[in-house]
């Protein structure tokens, strides 16, 4: 066994070691690497993925802007709807006021009519009074807390007076909300006014101006405001 042969063997052994070591390393890398993982992806694959993601991103962004526009449109619609509903609410309030379905307060006059020993108050007196008040611009009228509406009847049913199918008796307190000056002056015209006329006839009529009159809504369970025969004509 000479020296050169030992050296040769040693060198070949070292080279084998290096080669097999590197090969095993490579085997291990290939085995362990998850080919689908992003760290393992080659540059071209990454580029392809990037471009596809980019297109998707753009699409989604387009969608987003579209959706945002839609949302803005809907918001506008909601706003306009709110405006419309506000208008409707206002109208409804106005109508309710007009029809007498709300409690109202305000300044106006209170007229009290009483039966005395000689003369008693009849329905026609009340009708005249209510008409006079309406003429003077009364906005809400009630007799003994029964609201006077356009459909309200005031008739004699002895010994009562029937208002809104309710029987009322003396004293008759007529409340009216409106311009108090107009109302009082219309009633207390000299000679031809309601108060003068009726006091001449010997009836007891008193009138007061009041700052704070409360008139409650029409509230009669027996006689609901329903239209059964009259139908609206639409043009």
């Amino acid at each position: 066994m000479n020296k050169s042969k030992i050296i040769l063997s040693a060198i070949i052994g070292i080279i084998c070691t290096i080669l097999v070591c590197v090969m095993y390393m490579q085997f291990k890398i290939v085995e362990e690497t998850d080919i689908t993982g992003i760290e393992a992806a080659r540059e071209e694959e990454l580029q392809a993925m990037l471009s596809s993601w980019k297109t998707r991103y753009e699409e989604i962004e387009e969608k987003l802007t579209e959706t945002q526009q839609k949302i803005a449109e809907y918001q506008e619609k909601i706003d306009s709807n709110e405006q419309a509903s506000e208008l409707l609410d206002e109208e409804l309030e106005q109508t309710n006021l007009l029809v007498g379905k709300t409690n109202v307060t305000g300044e106006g006059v209170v007229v009290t009519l009483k039966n005395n020993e000689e003369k008693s108050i009849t329905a026609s007196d009340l009708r005249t009074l209510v008409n006079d008040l309406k003429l003077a611009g009364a906005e809400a009228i009630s007799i003994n807390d029964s609201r006077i509406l356009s459909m309200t009847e005031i008739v004699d049913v002895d010994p009562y007076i029937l208002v809104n199918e309710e029987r009322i008796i003396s004293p008759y307190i007529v409340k009216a909300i409106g311009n108090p000056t107009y109302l009082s002056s219309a009633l207390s015209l000299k000679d031809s006014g309601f108060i003068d006329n009726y006091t001449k006839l010997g009836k007891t009529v008193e009138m007061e101006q009041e700052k704070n009159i409360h008139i409650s809504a029409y509230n009669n369970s027996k006689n609901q405001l329903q239209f059964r025969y009259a139908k609206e004509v639409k043009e």
Partner: protein
Amino acid sequence: MILIAIIIGCIIGALIGMNIPTIPYTYSGYLAIAIIAALDSVFGAITSSLKRNFDMKIFISGFFVNAILAMALTYLGQKLNVDIYLAAVVVFVGRMFNNLGTIRRYYVEKLASNKIIAKAEAAIKQANEASKSNK
């Protein structure tokens, strides 16, 4: 002696390779090219030893320089956006097949010549025996 050295080297290399930490996947391409270059050198060495013109210096220089050059070319190819490593693979694997072919042919011829020699020896033996009996 040389065979024992090869076996021991393989075992040690396998043990080290199994326990060594792995390098990132990005560089595994370079490693693969280096392995192919080294394998080519090994087969070249076997062929040359069979032809009886094996030179240790050429083998070692080829082993390392080929591997390093292959890696460098692969790197250059990546920089130039040309797949130069494909050319390296083609060249090295082609040479590996050539060398393997040479090795195969050597052993086939050796086997065939052994048979012919054996036949000739048998014929000579027969002739000798015949001449002995003739005496």
